[in-house]
């Protein structure tokens, strides 16, 4: 019903816009084109990858389709409509309408189908030698055929309300609707690791709306924009049975294992989707300042998960100033600041062996408040000088500093402060129309990049993994004690980053051009005492475009991408 309503709304919009344009009593030139035909498609073997964005259920059938185009031109206005209907799930349509510089309207509809694959979970199957702990999986919907239909509607309108001050109203809208079926995987707890997969209905919508007004006031351009975005799933979350707690080998000791679980022997919803809303306000101002020009903006946004009632707020400010220092030299300064705060959820975990007779040295409360890593004050300043060295060469040099203060992270009394120095140089060379080339080098040096504190490893160098956090008389380490043994911070963020970019265009004739370039990037983190994290990538590219005569045009290209990452690999111990 909703999809019919959406299609009806789009049709109504198109009709209104068309009527509005046609109603003009000016001399017109109208062109129409209609394509009528159909398609036949088929596949062999596994088609979900090769035909990922196709409606495979039509395979082996003759499917009618059409295209329609209408272009209407008047001395002071225009109207364009294009529709390409491939099948019921693959449709592209666009309508644009314009009346001078007073009115612009653009609406698009894009619809596609996407095939989804099924994780067979076959790598989730193992058991310790000797019949010990076990990891198993169950495909409750083996052979399921997952796919979804994605529809996107975009509209944009611009109206000149008053010419003297160039007062202009703009509004835009974007909706993304998805319907279909996808895979959902529930994970049982580790006393008997057990993954179950089942089909999950997919029916979700994202709506985004923006509206604003811009005007010239005195010598300044001012503007305000309001934004709203929401996401919601319209189907209930799937549910799964969570296994009864018991010893993974002998099947006993249920009463001992059960209180170590948040839940067991019950059916619960999982893979639940959030319902989110985001609202924003933005002010813009730009104009002349001294001998230069400035542009600034200030925005506030608030996001909320309506189900969990968790919110985050952000203030973002930006200011740019550009001035021509002399005929060969230009200076640009950029300043941005972000202040973001997110709620810190309270994590309620059952006590260890709750309900059981427990010695005092084993009584533990695992509840905690999770401090959000989104909380931050982020400030960045850059200064760039662009200088024309001679008629063929231009050099720009940029320096900057970015400071991110993640207050209250990882704990409420902490604050992780990252500082990044940025340096960049870019050289442009142009020799007439025949040849042009540019080379850029960028360097970033970061102190204390973001990391997850104590996320990995027990203490390095321990000869024997003996417990040291409990006064219990037992010789073994309790699984929850291992948390306190972790010490290594983990991050993939670098402390040193180097980027190179070179691109060159050669035009031997006016009808032929050759592009050649290379992007390279290397980074590493030198602050991790027992990890060696680094990344490198190289992307050379070559392309040729030629149109030797009016009958022929030809393009060809080659792109390579080679990357390497070095990082730690760890394996969870069953006995953990």
């Amino acid at each position, binding site marked *: 019903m909703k999809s019919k309503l959406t299609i009806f709304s789009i049709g109504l919009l198109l009709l209104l816009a068309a009527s509005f344009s046609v109603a003009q009593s000016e001399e017109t030139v109208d062109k129409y084109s209609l394509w009528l035909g159909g398609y036949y498609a088929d596949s062999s*073997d596994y088609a979900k990858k090769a035909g990922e964005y196709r409606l495979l259920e039509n395979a082996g059938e003759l499917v009618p389709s059409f295209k329609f185009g209408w272009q209407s031109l008047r001395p002071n206005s225009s109207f364009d409509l294009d529709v390409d209907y491939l099948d019921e799930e693959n449709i592209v349509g666009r309508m644009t309408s314009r009346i001078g510089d007073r009115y612009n309207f653009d609406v698009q509809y894009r619809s596609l189908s996407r095939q989804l694959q099924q994780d067979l979970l076959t790598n989730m199957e193992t058991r310790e030698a000797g019949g010990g702990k076990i990891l198993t999986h169950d495909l409750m919907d083996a052979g399921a055929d997952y796919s979804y239909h994605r529809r996107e509607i975009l509209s944009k309108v611009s109206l000149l309300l008053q010419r003297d001050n160039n007062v202009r109203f703009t509004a835009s809208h974007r909706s993304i609707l998805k319907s279909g079926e996808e895979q959902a995987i529930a994970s049982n707890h580790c006393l008997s690791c057990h993954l179950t997969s089942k089909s999950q209905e997919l029916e979700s919508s994202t709506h985004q709306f923006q509206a604003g007004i811009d005007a010239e006031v005195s010598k300044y351009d001012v503007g305000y924009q309001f934004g709203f975005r929401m996401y919601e799933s319209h189907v209930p979350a799937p549910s799964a049975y969570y296994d009864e707690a018991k010893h993974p080998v002998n099947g006993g000791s249920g009463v001992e294992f059960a209180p170590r679980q948040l839940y067991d022997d019950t059916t619960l919803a999982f893979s639940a989707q959030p319902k989110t809303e985001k609202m924003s306000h933005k002010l813009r101002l730009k104009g002349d300042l001294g001998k230069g020009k400035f542009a600034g903006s200030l925005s506030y946004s608030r996001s909320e998960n309506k189900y969990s009632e968790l919110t985050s707020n952000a203030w973002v400010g930006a200011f740019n100033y550009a001035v021509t220092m002399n005929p060969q030299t230009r200076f640009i300064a950029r300043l941005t600041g972000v202040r973001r705060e997110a709620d810190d959820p309270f994590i309620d975990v059952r006590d260890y062996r709750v309900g059981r007779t427990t010695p005092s040295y084993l009584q533990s409360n695992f509840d905690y408040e999770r401090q959000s890593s989104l909380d931050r004050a982020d400030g960045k300043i850059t200064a760039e000088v662009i200088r024309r060295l001679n008629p063929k060469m231009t050099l720009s040099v940029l320096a900057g500093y970015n400071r991110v203060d993640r207050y209250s992270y990882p704990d409420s009394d902490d604050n992780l402060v990252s500082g990044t120095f940025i340096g960049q140089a870019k050289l442009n060379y142009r020799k007439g129309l025949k040849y042009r080339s540019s080379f850029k080098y960028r360097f970033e040096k970061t102190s204390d990049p973001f990391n997850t504190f104590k996320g990995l490893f027990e203490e390095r160098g321990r000869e024997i*993994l003996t417990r040291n956090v409990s006064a219990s008389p037992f010789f073994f380490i309790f699984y929850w004690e291992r948390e306190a043994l972790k010490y290594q911070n983990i991050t993939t963020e670098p402390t040193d980053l180097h980027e190179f970019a070179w691109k060159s265009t050669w035009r031997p004739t006016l009808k032929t051009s050759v592009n050649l370039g290379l992007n390279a990037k290397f980074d590493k983190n030198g602050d991790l005492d027992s990890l060696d994290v680094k990344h490198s990538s190289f992307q050379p590219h070559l392309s040729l475009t030629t149109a030797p005569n009016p009958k022929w045009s030809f393009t060809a290209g080659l792109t390579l991408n*080679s990357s390497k990452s*070095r990082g730690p690999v760890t394996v969870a111990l069953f006995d953990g």
Partner: protein
Amino acid sequence: MVDYKTKATSLYANANFVPSQRLHLFTTLSYHKSTAEYDPVEMPDITDKLEGDLTHQDFSFDHMHEYSNHDFGSVNLALGFGYLIAAQTTFTFDLEYADLTDDSGTAGTDPYYVYGDESGSWYMIRSGLKFDF
């Protein structure tokens, strides 16, 4: 510490040819090859750091680095023509073909990625008449 390597190579060629005012031909051919793999994982020998009997555990992980292997080769071809059969009437023909070869594993001891063997092909022929007025 382990290295994870990815490589992607893309080749494409596109040609348009208009031999006469009635006929327009076009074709696009592309080939894409992508691979990703971990180096073998050499887990440290921790037997002298263990207390208690964990001999039933297997710490070798000989094939663990193969779990995330990718090795895909794909060919995409599109070609077609438009022929003006009468004033304001054009006959069109389009062919699209996609073929993907999954070399990331076998059905035996070297398993494919989590979706299984993804090798397959798909084609579509679309044809019709275009009227301009």
